[in-house]
């Protein structure tokens, strides 16, 4: 059975590798954020006594690029439906949960590669990781974010038939998840409405985990970050495979 998961994963990576333009294109946004916000807000941030803004921002931008790539993985399902390949997958004697796991791992790997490339880019802007152990812990949180949001994207896509509707819905979801997550600003001393929203936003824990691991400062604590991200990833993966198994062609 693991063979099925493996080929689903492999297919996703091959498709990604063969369209490198997609990869190059999706680096534009993180670069812009690092350049404009990182350099632009840096002086104000340090004047307010908060230290180096780039050190704070970089994990947020890494998480952002993973979030975007992960959620948009869902569009592969819609393409497969449109171009007919989904039929080939769905008549195969493979359980729907394994199809879902294979697709999710494939998409999450693509998102993780994207995130690692952005991490390397942040080094060019002067970002530094505080320890080797922290680097690997950071990778773990990046994987969790990737799995969590890839399964969310695929779950949503499995309920949609419309190629044009998907990006609209995605942007509608991704923007608030990103902006209200603590990727761009510290979660301390926020107005109460914003504070509540950031607490129920799963990405807040993902960003905090990556930041805590890479730089050593966390808001929620790495234990809670890990718990929230991993439990939620499992739940959405499970719901996703239920939705996926309901697809009819």
């Amino acid at each position, binding site marked *: 059975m693991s*063979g*099925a998961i*493996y*080929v689903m994963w492999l*297919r996703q990576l*091959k*498709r990604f590798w*063969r*369209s490198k333009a997609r990869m190059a294109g999706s680096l534009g946004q993180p670069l812009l954020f690092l350049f404009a916000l990182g350099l632009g807000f840096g002086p104000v941030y340090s004047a307010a006594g908060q230290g180096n803004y780039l050190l704070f921002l970089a994990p947020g931008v890494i998480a952002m690029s993973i979030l975007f790539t992960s959620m948009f993985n869902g569009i592969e399902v819609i393409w497969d439906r449109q*171009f*007919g*390949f989904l*039929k*080939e*997958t*769905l*008549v*195969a*004697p*493979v*359980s729907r949960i394994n199809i879902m796991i294979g697709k999710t791992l494939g998409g999450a790997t693509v998102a993780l590669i994207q995130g690692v490339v952005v991490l390397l880019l942040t080094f060019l802007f002067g970002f530094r990781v505080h320890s080797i152990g922290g680097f690997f812990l950071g990778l773990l949180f990046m994987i969790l974010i990737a799995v969590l949001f890839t399964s969310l994207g695929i779950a949503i896509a499995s309920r949609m038939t419309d190629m044009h509707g998907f990006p609209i819905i995605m942007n509608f979801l991704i923007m608030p998840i990103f902006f209200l997550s603590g990727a761009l600003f510290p979660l301390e001393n926020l107005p109460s409405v914003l504070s509540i929203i950031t607490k129920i936003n799963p990405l807040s824990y993902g960003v905090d985990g990556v930041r805590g691991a890479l730089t050593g400062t966390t808001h929620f604590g790495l234990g809670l970050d890990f718990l929230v991200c991993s439990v939620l990833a499992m739940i959405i993966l499970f719901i996703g495979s239920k939705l996926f198994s309901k697809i*009819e*062609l």
Partner: protein
Amino acid sequence: MENSLEVKNLSKHFGKLKAVNNISFNVPKGSIFAFLGPNGAGKSTSIKMFTSLTKPTKGEILLEGINVLKNPDNARKQFGIVFQDHSIDDELTAYENLKFHAVLYQVPKDIRETRISDALKLVELEDRKNSLVKTFSGGMKRRLEIARGLVHNPKILFLDEPTTGLDPQTRNSIWKHIKMLNKEHGMTIFLTTHYMPEAEEIADIVAIIDHGKITAQGTVTELNKKAKAKTLEETFLKFTGKSIREEQGSGLDMMRRMRRLRH
């Protein structure tokens, strides 16, 4: 068990439309069964139900003795299918498409490569096995889809209009291979086509479906006799009438027709 496929009181409704309306028939093991009908008759919808892609509104399907609705994963191992429309990954090579298929169908590792290269030889695509499918012509893609349907050595092969859009040479060679699979390997063949002479030539049993209902069924000789016709084409027209099926057309068809009227 002497039937590869048993269909009992099968229906599929889309809102008010009864795309498939209470059909029942058997496909004997080792036979070539042609499912014929005008556009929109319900052929593809039926095949989607047989192959577990769509749930019937009601009815029962036994595939090689396995209940498709109750035991879909087991039923999926029994058949191969060539869909009416495109179902290949263009971004992968021909070989990669077949490899993907072989792994999904758990073809044992030691015979995987032989199966893949045999299938590619059969449709004469060996020399192009490492090309991306997006560089293939329509006919080559079709042949690859047929090869893919054979990689796991199914007991029954569904072919939904396998020769549409192909040149006569390719059509002949495909039918020749299908006959060979049937005669030499005892593979049951369930096919649809709009080329009546092809069906006449190859099929052991024919069923004619129209507006979701089966209107005639039997051997070609039996049906021709019943319709007092010389060819299957005449018989087909006698059973299904001469009007073009536009009343059932989709929204797109309606738009096309209206545009035609306006110009």
